[in-house]
């Protein structure tokens, strides 16, 4: 066995209740108890070793390169919490079996409960702070599920949401704190971190780390000012409250403080923040508890108060106070769990938790009443019960505080005051409920609960008594080992005994008890006094805050998002301006500059034509035909520019694409409205011109910035190897089919996919065919002028020949598959234009889809072919042959690859254009195609 088995078994245990639910409630409960029981037994076998001071550490490599390990450890502190979590958890499972009605989904409930238990165990067993945090978050989520178990009730949902929001937000702060700790220390390992306390405390980030970690702990442990979520979590089923608010959930924050005590405690800042939060929470919780008429509400505020007490002890920065804190963690868990269970029994059997109705229950349930009275006595700190012992230690420690300077007397005084309130509310829990007259309009006649429902309470109450009477024997060694883990060194002298002689702490206890009795006796006056204040409901404030955040977010969202793509584009462009423009401001203009090359008159004219046509396109964009003509002028100048700047391949490609694009847009114009109505408001136009001008300016600036730098290119390699390695003198083509052949393969694939996508879009489209142009002039009757038809028919073989020639010479001269493919496409489209689909259909029987497929296949297989010769994918082969009469010719595998490119380009272009053209004819593509 190893500790990892505990995690594994518990995790598997989550599914057990779901699977065994069908076997009935009893079997379900027993099976559910299996996993925690096994884990508990295993932990108990480790008890002697841990109590003797061994720390069990186990590590599992998870992702070693990332420094992530799974690591568990079991020291005294973890042991104490493990026993509480598993022990009380088992009792809760048993209790819940009787608490939940037969109709409720016990399987789901138990699954949540075990999940929560697993997460709590993982927190206390973690030896890695990231792991600890993960488990911490799982407790938030699973407690959300538990609190909202009765999800039909609005208060359950709201309470659960509040708990999740507060503890979840605290969890984020904790994560930040833990990451900072790990950053400072250099490790996520808890052992390493615990050993670096001095370094952390001296570090300049210490205040930030402390604040973040305390935020995590205080939200989880419901410390002032984050205490408000806890009372609202009482909407949970009582077993959940009994578990979450005694031994687990809220104790996780305390555990965190205790765990990081050796690292973070001991400074002025720790003392001031932790003590102050604890003190306020202690007094405030105790005071508010007095006025709660709901049994669980009373217990909830009492829990808040006791958590404040523990936090206060941990904040006191003395070793003895830390020991007292640990002792009180145990005691509080035991008596508070039993009290919650008792409250649940009363609620269950009397039908209400309102203490104004519950009176004189002693007659109906004496057994439960005795149990509750013992537990309440413990809560009040009456001698012979366990709560008394830790409270005495607390009183003793509060006397030794000097850190508030002259105000230090406040601590024992306020502690005694809280003690008085605690006695008073405990007294109310006992006297108001079990005595004090007769029951008042109870929904049902109360009676004792089922026998076994009382067993968990009996066990806990017995513990209260045993620890209260024989403290050293019962928990001495456990407390000692836990204190050893928290203090990481010499333990102070302390004695766990009931009688320490007649001293000041005892006087404080006596004052508390007597004072509590007096306060309780005069409670009606107190209620009247308190009734003058308007009670602020934390839920309303919280819900209000949530609602206003949601409203604000909706408002902002509605402002930004109006479902307009145009606006999205504009926003994207504005951000582009910001992220590209800002670095340009810092660009050193002096660093640029190699002088401009001289410019000739022709170039200036070409530049002017380009700019004028571009701007004309922009201005006349609403007259679509004119815009198309000016656009094509821009395209032509671009191809001329390519030719001018020594890129004949590009010029040829651009020219061919230009032709195809214009035909495409002409076809599109046939189907789209021919005019654009004026609809942009002037401010819109100004805004868009602004955006466009900024982008244009930025692009030009960037372009000028790099164009005027001396060139350093990797192209030397391509030029040097083009002939010897690739067998071609046209370096551009060799790059396409050889050096970067894989890129080209990908590109023709994209081209093919786009063509198929277009084909799919066109299939089954239903469009109204216009019969006249925008001025109402009907289209010409003569659809296929004979002269055009004849000439283009005659041109076809010539065009094909040219494209064949360009294809073949591509490796060595400007040309290649792309250009040849485009030329062929243009030639074929010319036939479509001149003759119409009806004429072409029987004459050119090319299936464009399969053309694309063949093209891609040929290109791919040419690449694969090199595998046959044991070479990597896409290695090309070439050789020179001397043929009689013809002379030396070169054969290269790249030519076959280029054939694939050629076929794909032809197929894709024609698939697009021919199908678009076919829309006007009876041969339109249908969905079946």
């Amino acid at each position: 066995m190893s500790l990892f088995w505990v995690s594994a078994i518990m995790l598997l245990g989550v599914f057990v209740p779901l699977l065994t639910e069908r076997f009935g409630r009893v079997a379900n409960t027993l099976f559910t108890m299996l996993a925690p029981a096994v884990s508990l037994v295993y932990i108990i076998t480790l008890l002697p070793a841990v109590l003797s001071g061994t720390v069990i550490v186990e590590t599992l490599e998870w992702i070693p390169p990332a420094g992530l390990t799974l690591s568990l450890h079991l020291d005294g502190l973890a042991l104490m919490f493990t026993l509480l979590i598993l022990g009380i958890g088992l009792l809760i499972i048993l209790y819940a079996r009787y608490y939940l009605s037969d109709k409720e989904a016990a399987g789901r409930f138990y699954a949540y409960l075990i999940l929560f238990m697993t997460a709590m165990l993982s927190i206390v067993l973690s030896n890695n702070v990231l792991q600890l945090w993960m488990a911490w978050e799982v407790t938030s989520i699973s407690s959300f599920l538990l609190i909202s178990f009765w999800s039909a009730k609005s208060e359950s949902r709201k309470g659960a949401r509040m708990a999740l929001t507060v503890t979840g937000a605290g969890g984020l702060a904790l994560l930040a704190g833990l990451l900072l700790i790990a950053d400072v220390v250099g490790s996520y390992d808890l052992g390493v971190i615990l050993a670096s306390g001095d370094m952390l405390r001296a570090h300049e980030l210490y205040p930030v780390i402390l604040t973040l970690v305390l935020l995590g702990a205080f939200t989880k442990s419901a410390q002032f000012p984050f205490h408000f979520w806890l009372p609202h979590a009482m909407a949970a089923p009582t077993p959940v409250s009994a578990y979450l608010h005694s031994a687990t959930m809220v104790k996780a924050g305390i555990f965190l403080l205790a765990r990081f005590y050796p690292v973070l405690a001991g400074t002025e800042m720790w003392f001031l923040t932790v003590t102050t939060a604890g003190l306020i929470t202690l007094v405030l919780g105790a005071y508010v508890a007095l006025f709660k008429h709901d049994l669980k509400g009373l217990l909830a505020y009492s829990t808040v108060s006791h958590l404040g007490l523990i936090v206060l002890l941990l904040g006191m920065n003395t070793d003895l106070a830390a020991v007292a804190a640990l002792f009180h963690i145990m005691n509080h868990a035991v008596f508070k769990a039993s009290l919650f269970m008792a409250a649940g029994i009363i609620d269950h059997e009397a039908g209400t938790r309102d203490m104004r109705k519950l009176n004189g229950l002693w007659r109906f349930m004496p057994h439960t009443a005795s149990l509750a009275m013992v537990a309440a006595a413990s809560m009040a700190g009456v001698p012979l019960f366990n709560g008394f012992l830790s409270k005495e230690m607390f009183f003793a420690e509060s006397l030794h505080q000097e850190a508030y300077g002259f105000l230090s007397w406040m601590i024992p005084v306020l502690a005694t005051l809280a003690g008085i309130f605690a006695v008073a509310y405990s007294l109310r829990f006992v006297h108001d409920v079990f005595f004090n007259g007769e029951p008042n309009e109870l929904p049902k006649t109360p009676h004792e609960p089922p026998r076994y429902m009382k067993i968990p309470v009996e066990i806990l109450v017995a513990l209260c008594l045993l620890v209260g009477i024989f403290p050293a024997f019962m928990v001495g060694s456990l407390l000692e080992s836990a204190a050893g883990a928290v203090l990481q060194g010499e333990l102070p002298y302390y004695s766990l005994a009931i009688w320490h002689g007649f001293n000041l702490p005892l006087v404080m206890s006596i004052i508390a008890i007597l004072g509590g009795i007096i306060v309780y006796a005069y409670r009606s006056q107190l209620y009247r006094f308190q009734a003058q204040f308007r009670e602020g409901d934390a839920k309303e404030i919280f819900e209000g805050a949530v609602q206003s955040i949601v409203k604000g977010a909706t408002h902002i969202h509605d402002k930004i998002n109006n479902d307009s793509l145009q606006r999205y584009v504009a926003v994207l462009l504005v951000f582009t301006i910001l992220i590209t423009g800002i670095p340009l401001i810092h660009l050193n203009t002096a660093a640029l500059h190699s002088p401009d090359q001289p410019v000739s008159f022709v170039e200036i004219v070409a530049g002017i034509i380009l700019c004028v046509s571009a701007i004309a396109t922009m201005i006349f964009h609403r007259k679509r035909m004119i815009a198309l003509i000016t656009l094509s002028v821009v395209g032509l100048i671009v191809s001329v520019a390519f030719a001018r700047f020594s890129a004949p391949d590009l010029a040829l490609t651009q020219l061919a694409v230009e032709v195809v694009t214009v035909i495409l847009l002409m076809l599109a114009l046939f189907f789209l409205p021919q005019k654009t109505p004026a609809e942009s408001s002037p401010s819109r136009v100004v805004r868009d011109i602004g955006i466009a001008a900024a982008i244009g300016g930025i692009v030009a600036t960037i372009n000028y910035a790099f164009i005027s730098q001396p060139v350093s290119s990797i192209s030397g390699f391509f030029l040097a190897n083009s002939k010897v390695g690739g067998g071609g003198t046209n370096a551009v083509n060799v790059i396409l089919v050889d050096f970067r052949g894989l890129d080209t393969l990908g590109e023709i694939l994209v081209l093919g996919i786009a063509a198929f996508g277009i084909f799919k879009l066109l299939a089954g489209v239903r469009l109204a065919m216009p019969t006249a142009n925008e001025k109402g002039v009907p289209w010409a009757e003569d659809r296929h002028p004979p002269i055009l038809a004849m000439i283009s028919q005659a041109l076809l073989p010539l065009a094909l020949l040219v494209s064949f020639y360009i294809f073949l010479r591509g490796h060595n001269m400007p040309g290649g598959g792309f250009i040849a493919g485009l030329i062929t496409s243009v030639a074929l489209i010319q036939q479509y234009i001149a003759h119409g689909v009806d004429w072409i259909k029987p004459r050119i029987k090319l299936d464009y889809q399969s053309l694309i497929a063949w093209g891609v296949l040929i290109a791919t297989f040419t690449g694969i072919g090199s595998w046959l010769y044991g070479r990597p994918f896409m290695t090309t082969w070439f050789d020179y042959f001397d043929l009689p009469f013809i002379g030396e010719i070169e054969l290269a595998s790249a030519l076959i690859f280029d054939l694939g490119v050629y076929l794909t380009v032809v197929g894709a272009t024609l698939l697009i254009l021919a199908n678009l053209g076919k829309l006007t004819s009876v041969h339109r593509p249908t969905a079946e195609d």
Partner: protein
Amino acid sequence: MELLYVICVGVTTFCGVFLCLRGRTFSVVVGLTMLSYAVNLFLFSSGRLSLNGAAILGMSDSYADPLPQALVLTAIVIGFAMIAFVVILSIRARADLGNDLVDGRDPPDTGKLIKSNRAKL
């Protein structure tokens, strides 16, 4: 020469972006075409402008940078495929939605503005 070149790139970008921001599909298609010219010119110029560089080995001592040329060549073809796709998409949208608006319907703010402006006139 360089200055003239980048001015041309800037102007085409400007017109392209402006047209892309229009509300009708055809204008956007024209804008995209214009933008792809600008982008191709921009990328092409990363090999610098060589006036008399040889494209073919052995024809001259100074060569034009072949790498941007190869990249731009495929970019031109892919750009065509993209524009074709957008064109067909807008035709399809016209068929299915009954209009050629980029948003498929009148944008909420502009429609109102125009109406109020017209009312003023």
